């Protein structure tokens, strides 16, 4: 997917007038947010669990090389293959080669954000292989030719009515007057349409929520069970995952799973949690004959030890975006690439560069709600600020804005000058604003007064009044 993050401002402004989007985003409050709050309230040790989960990841990242080696050894020992992919194009080539070696025509896919990150669908299609998304949300955006707008609910920007309309248009083999009111009916219909695809696929591609070093196991969590069919039915299973998904032990995986579902959907546990180790063994009734893991770096080792190291703890639960007022207003597409919301505001510049993604770390009020709910306690605002510092140093900050800031800072650092200037300007401004107590328009403050009035100053500054009072007494 070609990044559109430079156009954030325009895209956001368009999103703000998109009524179905507003309606769809409005549902997050009663859905994900309310459910997470309930799950948290029902588990007294939730906060402690967050600390434990964070500690697991911190430890893993400090010894990532060792755990990755261990993981590879165990995968190989169980009959699987690990393919190291330093870049997105390495990953794409590795995947295509496996598919071609398998003579694949159709590939089913479980939900994978890494798949989006490396834009695997387009690549396979160009090579004559048809990728079929099997997660309902991914299926919806694939038929609409859209990108995901949320990391766990890729089609969250769509309303039920839009989905119903799409299904009636696309699934013409089904009777037009069928009932499609409940989400469950939509899921059932998608399932029915996908069944044949599952059976016809030569290769199944899934992501991984976790990779366990101790056993060489990959773990996926889903609510639809599509991931299991994707990985069990075809002859070849490819897991695509980024290197920071690793955890040392099964026990550690369990710790993370306990915070993951609660933070993501408010479930205690996702409907399906699947542990997969190697290909089908002789005694297994089913499973793939080949098991491949494509391990993607794509800039992550650069983040290790940097100001953005903590971001590698992210378990992709989506809580930060669910609670973000900016995401809640503009939705995920405005962010212009794979990862939206607060986590995207840090991850996107880390992966595609700050020149491309410069808006994202700026488009935050620093309200801190993301950090407050992040199960891995990632200091998202702090890292966004670090990106702002980089932009400032690089000279990426818009010129007019920087000039204003410089003038203000020059005065603010010299309190006598500052107080002399404000002591003249403020009473004058107060005089102009006295009649109504506010301004409807004001030069150079168009951004403010386009949408709201600017309250007028009361009169003299506090410093003036205080000095006058002191002089009297």
């Amino acid at each position, binding site marked *: 997917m070609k990044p559109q993050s430079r156009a954030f401002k325009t895209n*956001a*402004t368009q999103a*703000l007038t998109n009524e179905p989007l507003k309606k769809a985003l409005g549902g997050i*409050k009663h859905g994900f947010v309310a459910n997470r709050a309930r799950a948290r309230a029902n588990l007294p040790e939730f906060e402690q669990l967050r600390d434990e989960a964070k500690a697991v990841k911190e430890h893993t990242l400090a010894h990532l090389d060792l755990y990755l080696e261990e993981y590879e050894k165990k995968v190989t020992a169980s009959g699987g293959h690990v393919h190291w992919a330093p870049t997105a194009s390495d990953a794409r080539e590795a995947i295509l080669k496996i598919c071609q070696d398998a003579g694949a025509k159709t590939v089913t896919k479980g939900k994978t954000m890494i798949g989006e990150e490396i834009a695997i669908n387009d690549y396979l299609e160009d090579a004559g292989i048809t990728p079929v998304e099997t997660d309902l949300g991914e299926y919806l955006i694939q038929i609409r030719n859209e990108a995901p707008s949320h990391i766990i609910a890729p089609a969250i920007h769509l309303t039920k009515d839009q989905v119903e309309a799409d299904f009636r248009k696309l699934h013409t083999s089904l009777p037009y007057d069928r009932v499609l009111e409940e989400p469950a009916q939509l899921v059932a219909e998608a399932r029915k349409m996908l069944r044949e695809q599952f059976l016809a696929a030569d290769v199944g591609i899934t992501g991984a929520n976790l990779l366990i070093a101790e056993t060489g196991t990959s773990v996926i969590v889903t609510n639809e069970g599509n991931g299991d069919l994707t990985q069990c039915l075809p002859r070849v299973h490819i897991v695509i995952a980024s290197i920071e998904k690793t955890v040392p032990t099964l026990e550690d995986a369990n710790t993370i799973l306990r915070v993951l579902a609660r933070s993501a959907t408010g479930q205690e546990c996702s409907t399906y949690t699947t542990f997969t180790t190697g290909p089908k063994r002789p005694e297994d009734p089913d499973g793939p004959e080949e098991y491949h893991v494509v391990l993607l770096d794509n800039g992550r080792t650069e983040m290790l030890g940097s100001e953005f190291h903590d971001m590698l703890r992210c378990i992709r639960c989506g809580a930060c975006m669910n609670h973000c*007022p*900016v995401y809640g*207003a*503009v939705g995920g597409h405005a962010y212009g690439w794979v990862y939206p919301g607060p986590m995207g505001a840090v991850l996107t510049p880390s992966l595609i560069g700050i020149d491309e993604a410069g808006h994202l770390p*700026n*488009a*935050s*009020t*620093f*309200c*801190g*709600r993301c*950090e*407050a709910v992040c199960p891995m306690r990632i200091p998202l605002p*702090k890292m966004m*600020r670090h990106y*702002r*510092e980089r*932009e*400032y140093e690089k000279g990426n*900050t818009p010129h007019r*804005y920087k000039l204003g*800031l*410089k003038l*203000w*800072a020059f005065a*603010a*650092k010299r*309190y006598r000058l*500052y*107080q002399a200037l*404000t002591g003249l300007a*403020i009473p004058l401004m107060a005089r102009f604003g*006295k*009649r*109504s*107590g*506010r301004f409807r328009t004001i030069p150079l*403050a*168009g*951004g*403010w007064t386009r*949408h*709201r*009035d*600017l*309250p*007028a*100053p*009361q*009169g003299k*500054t*506090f*410093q003036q*009044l*205080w000095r006058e009072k002191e002089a009297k007494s």
Partner: protein
Amino acid sequence: MAKTEIAEAKPSVGLFVTCLVDLIRPSVGFAAVKLLEEAGCKVEVPRAQTCCGQPAYNSGDKKDAHELALNTIAAFEGYDYVVAPSGSCAGMLSHHYPELLGDNPETAERAHAFAKKAHELVSFLVDVRGIKKVDIKYSGRVTYHDSCAGLRELGIKDQPRKLLKSIQGLKLQEMDEAEICCGFGGTFCIKYPDISNAIVEKKTANITASKSDCLLAGDLGCLMNMAGKLSREGRQMDVRHVAEVLAGMTDEPAIGANGGES
């Protein structure tokens, strides 16, 4: 005020006025002085203060933020406490200065010592000075917005409510989503005005639905944003800093209002 709870020795407090209160609404500064004095403090206002440096800090301009932070620390060197009528500025002083000045051991130490004595006004009154109630009367229904930095960096939630509820005649009506950002975000509202507007629209809808006649909060930036939006929407609602009500100083026209003239 419940004087019995107050310790005998008068601690010295340097009032960090905050740039917005200094320029836009000095009455909040006077309300803060009154509350602090009633809480048994000796209050002074050092002249050598301007702004905490947050606009520079959050814009990535570390150098200017650094200098402003050192100026502020120097201005308040001699006081037992530094108190600000803003959660956002107090958060800058107590949480971000140590981070900003942490690179060099000498400035780091000064920043830490300074951070320890820096407080937001209402939480200082309740948590440090042990104030439990204010003896004033007020008639009306108020709703309280939790500004983000105060709430999430400093844990300010119950303190203002406790004091507000102690006021005779005041009815506190909670709005829905009181803890959600108003969309101000300092320079954010200038850089992304349309997004900021979408966020504040949700806020004013919640404020209006609370059926209160006065909106309170502890940060003038957020208050100006919400007051500006409410008046643009043509809503009749007083907007005030919580300190004005707690100090019983509500004679001044509300934020963005004209005091009856037209």
